[in-house]
């Protein structure tokens, strides 16, 4: 196979990107295809699975196999794809509404089941495509198109959730620190078992506009100011910590993945009556 460059993984005739100015999705897309280049992934053997939402459009720009399913169900489609052919490299791209709100049940069960998938949730803290309503990760007290008086629910800490569900690899990066994000995506793709990367991303069009950050740079700056690494986070009080995006790798443990375990089932079943 010839050496693949990052733009060999892109569907350039679909450019320009569909996303708004200042959106973080393009940055995450860049990190993903550069990770592909770094790993020299075989296009034929790679499947990108997406759900519905702004980030769900990402597969339009990626030049591998793709499956564009329904809102919230990308992980379930991906589970079938991977288990049917464990040789495939399966990458699942979801937003916070898609992957962690309507699809939250699939997220925790995919982590528990430990199917060898890499899930990347771009968390822009609200539903972008439908007009900026609150999602399962919208921070308390922030404003969205459906929390006009301030949000009274608490948002998920997705990394804690997925860690609790048993995933062997859990990390959070942000669009502000794209080098780190790319490194985490590479690690996640290399990890055998369910790997999860959350990418904190700006949505100036909706979330930013309603929370005093109308432009991309303003929102990026807000993400930067509110981000701490794991070491710094340890020094914060629980109350202070809750308000921050803690970036870094939380879990990296070895666990036998589903398909490997199922290989043993074949042997047992063959000898059963």
């Amino acid at each position, binding site marked *: 196979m010839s050496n693949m460059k990052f733009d060999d993984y892109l569907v350039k005739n679909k450019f320009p990107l569909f996303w708004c100015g200042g959106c973080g999705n393009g940055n995450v897309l860049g990190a993903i295809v550069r990770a592909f280049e770094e790993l020299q992934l075989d296009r034929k053997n790679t499947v990108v699975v997406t759900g519905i939402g702004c980030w769900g*459009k990402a597969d339009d720009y990626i030049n591998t*196999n793709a499956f564009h*399913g329904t809102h919230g169900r990308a992980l*379930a489609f991906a589970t079938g794809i991977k288990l*049917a*052919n464990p040789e*495939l490299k399966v990458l699942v791209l979801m937003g916070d509404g898609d992957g962690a709100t309507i699809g939250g049940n699939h997220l925790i069960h995919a982590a528990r089941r430990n199917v060898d998938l890499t899930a990347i949730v771009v968390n822009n803290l609200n539903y972008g495509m439908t007009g900026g309503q609150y999602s399962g990760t919208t921070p308390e007290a922030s404003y969205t198109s459906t929390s006009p008086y301030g949000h009274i629910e608490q948002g998920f800490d997705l990394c804690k959730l997925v860690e609790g569900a048993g995933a062997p690899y859990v990390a959070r990066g942000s669009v502000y620190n794209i080098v780190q994000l790319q490194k985490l995506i590479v690690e996640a793709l290399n990890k055998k078992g369910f790997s999860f990367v959350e990418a904190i991303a700006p949505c100036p069009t909706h979330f930013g506009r309603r929370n005093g950050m109308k432009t991309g740079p303003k929102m990026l700056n807000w993400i930067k100011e509110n981000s701490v690494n794991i070491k710094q986070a340890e020094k914060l009080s629980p109350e202070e910590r809750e308000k921050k995006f803690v970036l870094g790798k939380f879990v990296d443990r070895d666990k036998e993945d589903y398909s490997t375990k199922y290989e043993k089932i*074949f042997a047992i079943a063959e000898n059963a009556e």
Partner: protein
Amino acid sequence: MEQNRRIRFIQGNEAIAEGAIAAGARFYAGYPITPSSEVAEVSSVRLPQVGGLYVQMEDEIGSIAAIIGASVAGKKSYTATSGPGFSLMQENLGVAVMAEVPCVIIDVQRSGPSTGLATKPAQGDVMQSRWGTHGDHGIIVISPSSVQDCYDLTIQAFNLSEKYRTPVIFLADEIVGHMREKAVLWEPSPDQIINRKKPTCDPKDYKPFKPDEDGIAPLAAYGSEYVFRVSGSTHDETGFANSKPDNADRFIRHYTDKIEKNKKDIVILRRFNLEDAEYAIVTFGCSTRSALEAMKIARNMGKKVGVLQLVTLWPFADDGVRELCRKVKGVVVPEMNLGQVIREVKRVNENNIPIVGVNKVNSEAITPFEILAGIEEVER
């Protein structure tokens, strides 16, 4: 010969799982629900014995998603459920239609709506199986009336699914699913099994939604030489999203046409004593058995009664039923619902002959005597 034919006394649900495996299915994803759970249990035992995979998902939404994914990755796949789970599957059933993904969904009908009576039979999902997912589309729905049917017709369901690149719904019911009966499990020969067409073109030229002359596009598998995309969004031949009106029009018509225009190949009808019949019972699923018993009793009484069994419920056998309505003096339609199939029968009743429904929703099977009463009613 003995090796290729096993006589078993088993439940319909067990025969469905055996039929799926005989058809070449090697992937099951599902969520347990009465009265379909034996399909899951038998599949969990049998699939790994033949190199297949059983996975229990977190819900029915995930179950149908997983079998669709598995099918695009190259495995014949199926799931089994009942009313509440079938309701949850409707959105992703549309994905299988839109992305033209072969798969088989088994709905062992129970009494509804909602949780209803979980262990009791009904035939109330006829219209849901046709129109449950939103948007226009064609669909193939097959309804078994015996344990042997559960085996034979499951194989047929997979064959049609593969041939027409479409989800097929196997609409069983609690009576047939749980009944134990003799079934001959025969080993299909390779020419009795249909596998989806694979592309043969240069991988660069492959368009996963470009139909051949027969109207059906070849489907590659992920991991092959062919790199491709499928989508539940309105797409063009390449699988990329496409919002142009003429494209949407063409594809939405295609989803209906590829089924409706192949009715001759798809629809299975069974005719019993219709040659000289003056009155006919049009029936399907478990009610077929009551209808045949009623026919037997009526014939013993000297009444010329015949039975038309709709093995294929959808696409509806317009021609077969229309022809019947031209020939007989009256029709009785027994169904364990308040009248779903009878609407279709009336739709093609050009001569306005009397058509009477025998409808029962108390969770008990329709008895032959209730159908005989229906025949007396049309005789009047």
